[in-house]
């Protein structure tokens, strides 16, 4: 599903040039659950953004579902992102001025799903995230864990092939964090491919495979035996 070869990404700011990713080659098959770990600033988010087609690599190749997308324009990337990719962030990234329902509805809106179907699917997704009763509330009125569940509902509602999560439990306490991890695991078991950036060893244990990043380079890759056996 994902195959990168020698991905590099550098940022220029005024005078310094940071090499955030240095020749990253990574292969992710369909229905894998991969955790990306590493110290802060090592390039995890940068990698995830590129893999999620939010950003472009400076050089290298990136094949997503059979397409070479490294040189895609923003509008081409938007087209692929739509419906295929779901995002979960540490800071939830919900729109404050929209209700929970409207937030979750957005991806379907952009996929031009008819209204009646939208309603059913949103309520179903919210129900699954155990947040259906807060559909009319605004994000600011929810706790962090509830907000993250809304964000996950929003990420999964178009049934994406790939879910990208950037420290999804980073802003949550352990109880809420676990709940989120369980939800992701459930999705994985239903057939989704999941790429998750995390700091926490505990969270990484839910994954199938762990990729360790240091200074923009992959240093080790390890297969999570517990998971493999479960498979």
């Amino acid at each position, binding site marked *: 599903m994902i195959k990168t070869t020698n991905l590099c990404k550098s940022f220029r700011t005024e005078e310094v040039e940071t090499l955030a990713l240095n020749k990253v080659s990574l292969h992710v098959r369909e229905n894998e659950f991969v955790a990306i770990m590493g110290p802060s600033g090592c390039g995890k988010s940068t990698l995830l953004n590129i893999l999620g087609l*939010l950003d472009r690599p400076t050089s290298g190749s990136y094949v997503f579902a059979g397409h070479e997308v490294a040189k895609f324009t923003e509008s081409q990337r938007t087209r692929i992102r739509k419906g295929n990719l779901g995002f979960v962030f540490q*800071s939830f*990234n919900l*729109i404050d*001025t929209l209700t929970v329902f409207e937030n979750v509805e957005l991806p379907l809106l952009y996929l031009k799903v008819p209204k009646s179907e939208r309603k059913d699917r949103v309520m179903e997704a919210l129900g699954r995230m155990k947040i259906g009763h807060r559909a009319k509330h605004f994000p600011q009125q929810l706790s962090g864990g509830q907000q993250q569940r809304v964000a996950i509902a929003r990420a999964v509602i178009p049934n994406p092939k790939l879910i990208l999560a950037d420290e999804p439990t980073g802003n949550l306490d352990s109880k809420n964090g676990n709940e989120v991890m369980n939800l992701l695991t459930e999705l994985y078991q239903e057939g989704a491919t999941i790429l998750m950036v995390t700091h926490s060893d505990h969270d990484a244990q839910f994954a199938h495979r762990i990729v360790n990043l240091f200074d923009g380079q992959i240093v080790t890759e390890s297969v999570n035996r517990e998971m493999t056996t479960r498979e």
Partner: protein
Amino acid sequence: MLKTHLKMAWQNLWKNRFYSTINIVGMTVAITCLLLAVMYWDEEHGYDDFHTNNPNLYRITTNLVEHKGAIVQTVGTTGQIQGRAFKEAVPEIRKFTRVMGGGISSEVSTAEKTLLLNTLFVDTSFFEVFTFPLVHGTALTALKDVNGAVLSASTAMRLFNSTDVVGRVLRMESDPSYQRLEKPLVVSAIAKDPPKNSSIQFDILLPFEFLELAFTDTNWLNTYLGTFVVLEPASNRERIEQQFNRVFATHARDQVEQNIARYGFDSKINYGLQNISDVHLEPLLSGNDFNGESGIVDTSTPIYSIAFLVIALLILILASINFINITIATALNRAKEIGIRKISGSNKIQIIFQFLLESGLLCGISFLLSLLAIRQLIPIFNSLTAKQFAFEQFFNIEMGGYLLLIFGSVILITGLYPAFVLSRFQPSEVLYNKLKQIGQNVVGRGLIVFQFSLGIFLLIVAIVFHSQMDYVRTKDLGYNPAQIITTRISGNRDYAAIGNVLKDELSREPAIMSISYIRNQSSGGVMVNNKRIESSFKSVDDNYLPDVEIPLLVGRNFSPDFATDLTNSVIVNETFVNASNLSDPVGKSIELIEYEGKPTKTIIGVVKDFHFGSLRESIKPMVISMAQVPYGDILIKFQKSKQREAINELEMVYKAIMPNAVFKYDFLDELNAKQYRQELRWQKLVDIATLLAIIICCIGLLGMVHLSINQRIKEIGIRKLLGASVTSIVALLSKDFIRLVLIAIVIATPIAWYAMNRWLQGFAYRIDLQWWIFAAAGVVAVVIAMITVSGQSLRAAMADPVNSLRNE
């Protein structure tokens, strides 16, 4: 303390330089307009203030009563007789002088040259009543001798190349008084040129006694010249006016009775006093006084200075709205700073002070830029207003006072409200991010709607103005003014003889096709079938109608072949026929009531209606009689594309016949166009005001869009992440603002419709207010707003979402 505050203010302006620029541009435009408007106002209201007698210097006004008994109007003029009679009866009158002229030009010659000079006939006390300092000569004796003449300094220069010319000799050979004087005029004094804000202007002053050699008039019922009086300080004006009326009642009794006997109505007259300072803006001149004997020139009405000030204030309001909107909105971004300052013990006053300081700094910069702008703009402004302002005028105490006043109020308006709003922020709300978004900022949106309503209103005004003026300019006048030069014979000359020679000589010139005469006479009553019809009177020769291509509907033109045409025949216009209900007008008799002897005339023809004068007035009934002597205008029709030759030939012949005369000419079509000069100036002004208003609206909108996008940058990122296309983001961001503009259209349209309808009522011939005018204004507003908004939105929509999502 102040220094740190100032430094902080400066840093803030610099940090927000995009918004600071918007504010400075808007404020500079507004302050520039306001300063110009104040300057104009000051000039208009400062006319004639320079006379040292001023608080006690008055003009005598006359209330005229029409034959039906209603007061027709108050005029600022009197006859010749009132001044002296009033002075004798009323001890509070210290001095008086009559002033006759303003539109009187005389041919004045030295040994070398003849010039046409603007002449005033005045009493010897002229220099005691008015303050016109002399350069040479003595005020008390300057006008004592009947042949004494006072020149203005610039006229002396033109005539003699020197101002030191007291004692030099002048001739006025075509002047009837001079013809009876039997000795030359002698320059008795040289006066400084009247200042440009004087309603009384002259090249040459001649004693009233000199005028009286040829023209005396003891009629109490006449009103044509200005009589000015200096009253004792603190005298009771009302009592004096009553005394005037009593003098009239006794002195004029015989004349009033004669008038009743002759014309059948009692011209009840009573008098008033008008301070000289009010004369410029309230000239009280009726149609006939514009013939130019009232002594008053360069008249105006308060409407111009008011309109200027209103426009400038509107623009200031627009710019202030931007200022307030932007200050509040950027301050929302700064809310954290304010919250922290509050927590760390800064009090309300200090926060307000900081805001006032920032707006003061912005206004200060704008003010300096305005002064620079005005320096550059003064020539343009002068041509727009037909005035002669100078940049230096700004630096006197009075303007300085206005400057300070404007400066202070602008800072207060623009600084105080935002400061007040923002200082009330609760730190808890601010720090916990509970502030509402700009998108829901009701006041800000309301202000944008208000701004755009004004902009759209002005846009409609401008379109209607243009359409109406185009209509007026291109409307068929009913005659053809092309290829016609007008000139006249002036002074006391043998008009009949000169006219004949002129016609003879000119008809031999190859470029000249035809010569005709027309003279405007007053208006008055005409009796037809026992019905009185108010008509205007003209007299023309037999060439006039064919030369200007006015078609006869029935009957015939005047002709030298009919001996009775000169004495008995008239041609009338269609309106006259309609007003008099004549079914078969040719051959019918009419009686001209207000002419001596009530002559009876026979209608020999009817012409198609044609316009004479401004299209503000509708066509009136007209009675045209025949004249063979060119007392009025001489029209010379020339061959197409032979204009230069025609002028040369005309000038040659004219000068050969009248060697001492000054040749002056105009083109008839240009004269017509000149009538609309005032309107054209206003059209330009409205255009500029509209343009400025719209620019200010747009930069304000730009600022608000920018702010709102900055606030929604994360939302935009999220939406893009979820698959929103660029178009849908642009639509999302623009929708709100376009909706505001649509609301503004709904508000502005009916108001503009009402206002322009009222304005158009002032024209007898006017366009209909068609729906497309409003639609066009609306479309223009929406398109302009769309362009303003979409540029910003597009930029936001095209940005990579990753950038906006990254920083948390």
